[in-house]
């Protein structure tokens, strides 16, 4: 009896229309972040792009500046009970609960595929203790094909009463500092927006040796079904992402830009090239596209195309000239 469910092959969408002549232009979109040489500033955000391979049938991964994989922990994690996602006004809540295959399986099963592409792979990771963070960092340090690490510090620390690492400057310093000593890879620290003053955490991460900062992670939120009176998420509380949060993200990037020297990666509600450019203007050297990937698998590529167009139209010579050039 055929107990295994037969998988039908997923047939890809028609490939994107070839952009003629891009290669001929002198336009230089490259940017160096944290020592990672990106051919352009467009990345995909952790948790919204799987391990990369899920999107390979739909977009040309080679065009991305970098891709950031789903957050990894030391051991595989099951994640939270369903329902895990719910749409909200111009956004969505997710309570995936950091489900992932674990750093080891990633290296063995997913990385070989990603190595085939001419795109930087950045590995997002987390732990529930400083030790776990360091262990994961060490494991990832030793392998080929990883261009850099992105530390998700919006995670509760089991050693300190499940206080989130990223909401306390002291904890932030300690975990970043410890990880810094555990890896030679470029280290990006990803900041939480659920905080009174994000610049304090940004400075703590800078002091602790981060090479770059990415922001923002999701805003804490919830939703209720008025018919059942139950939370719409199995985990009650989840993370809000999508266009709804863009104004908050822009403001935080601008604040952090004014208070630290590190290069910044802007994240939050980026759907279009204009959105991405807004982030550059307030201080982001690169951007990550998250929820938009769900709405349109080719969003990141369209955003890249749009940035190229903007640069040409406005005769911007390189990314640096845009970063933080807000006219206030």
């Amino acid at each position: 009896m055929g107990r295994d469910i037969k998988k039908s092959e997923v047939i890809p969408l028609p490939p994107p229309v070839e952009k003629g002549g891009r290669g001929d232009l002198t336009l230089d979109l490259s940017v160096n972040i944290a020592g990672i040489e990106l051919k352009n500033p467009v990345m995909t955000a952790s948790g919204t792009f799987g391990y990369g391979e899920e999107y390979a049938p739909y977009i040309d991964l080679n065009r991305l500046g970098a891709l950031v994989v789903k957050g990894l922990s030391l051991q595989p994690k099951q994640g939270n009970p369903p329902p895990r996602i719910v749409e909200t006004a111009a956004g969505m809540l997710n309570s995936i609960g950091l489900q992932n295959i674990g750093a080891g399986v990633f290296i063995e099963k997913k990385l070989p595929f990603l190595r085939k592409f001419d795109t930087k792979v950045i590995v997002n990771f987390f732990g529930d203790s400083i030790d776990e963070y360091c262990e994961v960092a060490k494991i990832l340090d030793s392998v080929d094909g990883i261009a850099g690490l992105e530390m998700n510090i919006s995670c509760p620390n089991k050693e300190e009463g499940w206080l989130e690492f990223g909401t306390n400057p002291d904890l932030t310093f300690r975990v970043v500092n410890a990880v810094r000593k555990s890896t030679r890879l470029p280290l990006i620290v990803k900041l939480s927006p659920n905080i009174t003053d994000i610049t304090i955490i940004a400075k703590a991460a800078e002091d602790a040796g981060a090479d770059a900062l990415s922001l923002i992670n999701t805003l804490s939120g919830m939703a209720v079904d008025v018919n059942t009176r139950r939370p719409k998420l199995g985990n009650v509380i989840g993370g809000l992402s999508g266009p709804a949060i863009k104004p908050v993200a822009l403001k935080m990037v601008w604040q952090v830009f004014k208070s630290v020297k590190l290069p910044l990666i802007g994240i939050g509600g980026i759907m279009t090239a204009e959105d991405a450019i807004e982030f550059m203007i307030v201080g982001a050297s690169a951007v990550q596209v998250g929820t938009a990937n769900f709405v349109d698998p080719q969003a990141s590529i369209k955003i890249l195309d749009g940035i190229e167009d903007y640069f040409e139209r406005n005769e911007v010579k390189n990314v640096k000239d845009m970063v933080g050039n807000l006219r206030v």
Partner: protein
Amino acid sequence: MAKILYNKQILPAYYQLGIRWENLPTIEPGQFVMLRLTKYIDPLLRRPFGVYKILGQGARGKGQGIEILYKVLGKGTRLMTNLKPDDEVDILGPLGNSFSAHSGKTNVIIVAGGIGIVPFYLLAKRFKKVRLLFGGRSKDDLPGLDDFKKLKIDIEVSTDDGSRGKKGLVTEIIAKQLSGNSLIYACGPQGMLKEVARIADKTGIPCYVSLDKAMACGIGACLGCAIKVKGQGPWVKSQENKSAIRNPQSAIYKMVCKDGPIFDAREIVWEEI
């Protein structure tokens, strides 16, 4: 972008939407597509819809496309009712797995509740002999019934209010249809699926269900459409009854969009659906 061919209201809450799709890929019964309904951001996410029919199948070229059969539920499906010929929608797909066949099972029974009929039009056409048990709240909740009648298959209809067919739940008419040679495919409301699964489990009849979970990506990337399935250890026949069991401790999450939408009913942890 794909052009709308037609958008026909067939019942108060149900529409058939024809979409032109050039170079139509192979689509297996049970697969679905994700439709982006607007260029605006409300609603933001795509919506999943099964492929009900394939249009112009066989004849290459003109007329190729798919038909969606949809029920008006909320924001997205209400917006769909405004679609008119030559409007464009953005399709992602086909996505998901298909139904498993079982050689030797000759008594194929399809159990559908309301809009749960969708995956079965393409499936029914694959079988020489198949029996459809189709339930709905009322006669207005039996979308596509006429299409199935044209397939000249055995059909039994039930409605909660008795306005067509037997009065009662569709699950009440399953039992007497079953034989050692049966195989069940089911799609519909969760309550119905649970009951079908329970019956199949009790009688040891293989049963495949197509599940519905809110989705964001549709391609296994966001891990949003999780359902709990029993662990991966080997199946064991329970001693007390005929059901197959696995160690519930080793339960894991699978994704409806990628590992499904069709699952072996015994695989699912029904208590946590």
